């Protein structure tokens, strides 16, 4: 890269160089200090949240003993899994439809697909609340469907915002791929399904998995939409914690928080390691 040679001129000299470094360091401290402090204080032997009284594992024991917390985590996992699977299938199909085909109404669909990404959480939550309020009795007519339980409503609304995220990620991957491989498969008398299964799918897999990870993260992160559609007995963990925070903080929140944070950071690290692995694999394949 020719940029590399000139990159040194980009770094300011003298005082401003040290200012730049100091500033960057401080911003990183700003990013991580709260996370570290939360982690440390989850071992704090005190009923108050703020000041340090000594080490205890008590809040983790409280976490392990708390049946409500377990149930909420279980609800979150279920909602997350169901909504991610549905959103990945629908999102990937729509990405293919938009990127590889030209059809009537495509532009309109493309525009609508962006809306769930930019719409504020609160608006989405209100939409789901009034929609289910007006129509739940119609859905309940369908045999086997019971929207009053809350779990279905959670899954349905999480799918509604996650299709778009999956679709955007998969499309980005598709746009960088050459369609000629699929054409070659078609020339060799593969039918559409075979071409998809053998040629397209393996190539877009990193995009599909990336979209799935994003969907999982967003589903677990969501508080606002979930708290509007959740029913008694089906409270996801984020909504449960949000409720605890508003009622008045018990340090139990700290241990629950550390567990949630650890889960989400492991997800990020897993996805980074994964993308690194597939990236280098691709490079190696190109070399040979």
């Amino acid at each position: 890269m020719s940029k590399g040679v000139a990159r040194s001129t980009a770094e300011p000299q003298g005082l401003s160089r040290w200012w730049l470094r100091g500033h960057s360091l401080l911003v990183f401290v700003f990013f991580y200090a709260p996370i570290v402090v939360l982690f440390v204080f989850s071992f704090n032997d005190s009923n108050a949240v703020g000041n340090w009284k000594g080490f205890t594992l008590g809040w983790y024991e409280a976490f392990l003993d708390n049946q409500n917390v377990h149930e909420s985590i279980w609800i979150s996992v279920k909602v997350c899994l169901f909504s991610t699977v549905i959103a990945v299938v629908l999102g990937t199909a729509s990405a293919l439809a938009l990127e590889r085909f030209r059809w009537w109404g495509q532009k309109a669909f493309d525009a609508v697909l962006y809306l769930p990404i930019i719409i504020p959480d609160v608006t989405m939550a209100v939409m789901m609340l009034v929609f289910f309020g007006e129509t739940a009795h119609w859905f309940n007519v369908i045999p086997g469907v019971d929207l009053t339980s809350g779990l279905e409503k959670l899954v349905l609304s999480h799918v509604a915002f996650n299709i778009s995220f999956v679709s955007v990620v998969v499309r980005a991957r598709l746009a960088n791929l050459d369609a000629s491989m699929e054409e070659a498969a078609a020339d060799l008398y593969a039918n559409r399904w075979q071409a998809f299964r053998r040629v397209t799918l393996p190539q877009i897999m990193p995009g599909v998995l990336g979209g799935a990870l994003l969907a999982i993260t967003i589903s677990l992160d969501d508080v606002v939409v979930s708290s509007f559609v959740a029913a008694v007995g089906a409270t996801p963990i984020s909504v449960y914690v949000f409720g605890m925070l508003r009622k008045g903080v018990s340090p139990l929140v700290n241990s629950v928080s550390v567990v949630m944070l650890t889960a989400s950071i492991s997800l990020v690290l897993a996805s980074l390691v994964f993308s690194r692995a597939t990236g280098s694999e691709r490079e190696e394949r190109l070399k040979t």
Partner: protein
Amino acid sequence: MSVVAPPDEAQAVDGPSEVATPGLERQAERAKARQGFLLGLPAILYLLVFFVIPLGVVVAYSFATRTRSGRTELRDWNLNAYARLGDDIVLTVAWRSLWVAALTTVICILLAYPLAYFISTRSAVTRNLLLVGIMIPFWSNFLIRTYAWRVLLDSDGLVTQMVQATGLGDGRILFTTNAVILGLVYGYLPFMVLPLYAAIERIDWSLVEGARDLYANGWGAFRRVVWPLSKPGVVAGSILVFVPSFGAYVTPAILGGNKEGLLGSYIVLQFLSARNGPVGSAVSVVVLVVMLLGTLLYFRAGGKNL
């Protein structure tokens, strides 16, 4: 005949020029268009039922009638809810939201720009490590990250004690608008760093070198070359920060006070406590329109890639 038609040729299916294409090719194109539509159909139907119709219901609610018992009934369409938007309380909350979102955006630019610049000037290995360092908070649970500030800002929390020790003030900002701004900056700062980094990293540094050769000092080269070239990143980051800050609900609920509400909390209040569906819907519609305008700006600024 190629199996996959080039896009411009395929788009002609919509136009009248399709008459000119030979019958066989036209048939193949039609079949392909139908396949594409069928592939997209499940997602189209899903979003129609669970997104477009709900959005329509909210818009309908904003013109609907509120009964005395607090029910919203879809009859006697009127503009009463929109008339309420001129009330002092709504205007105060709206201005405060606008102010909070604007200040959050400016602080994010000031914090993120030097950092993004610093990362761009590192070697490839360091750069990737630093980017991972930004990605981790970017992806980790937003609610929990916001809550962490409650521990720090508690009346005897670490930050409060540090501020008191330096004698700058009593440092008690929890449950004020300042705490909300701090929380929003913390939450959305990665949204600013990443597009800024993307924009600065792409800059051709030989231009800077050229400016220096022409006797521009460091500041001059930055102001005349780097800053203009990084502007798309500034615009993209600003919108990515401003839009969610403007509609924020979680951060003010955790770090803010009861008396200084923002639009997000106001909407929730209308639905869950005041039981005024039409007003809550009307405010939602207005917030949504603001977001759409913001996003249109974003696309016009050419920031399609983040």
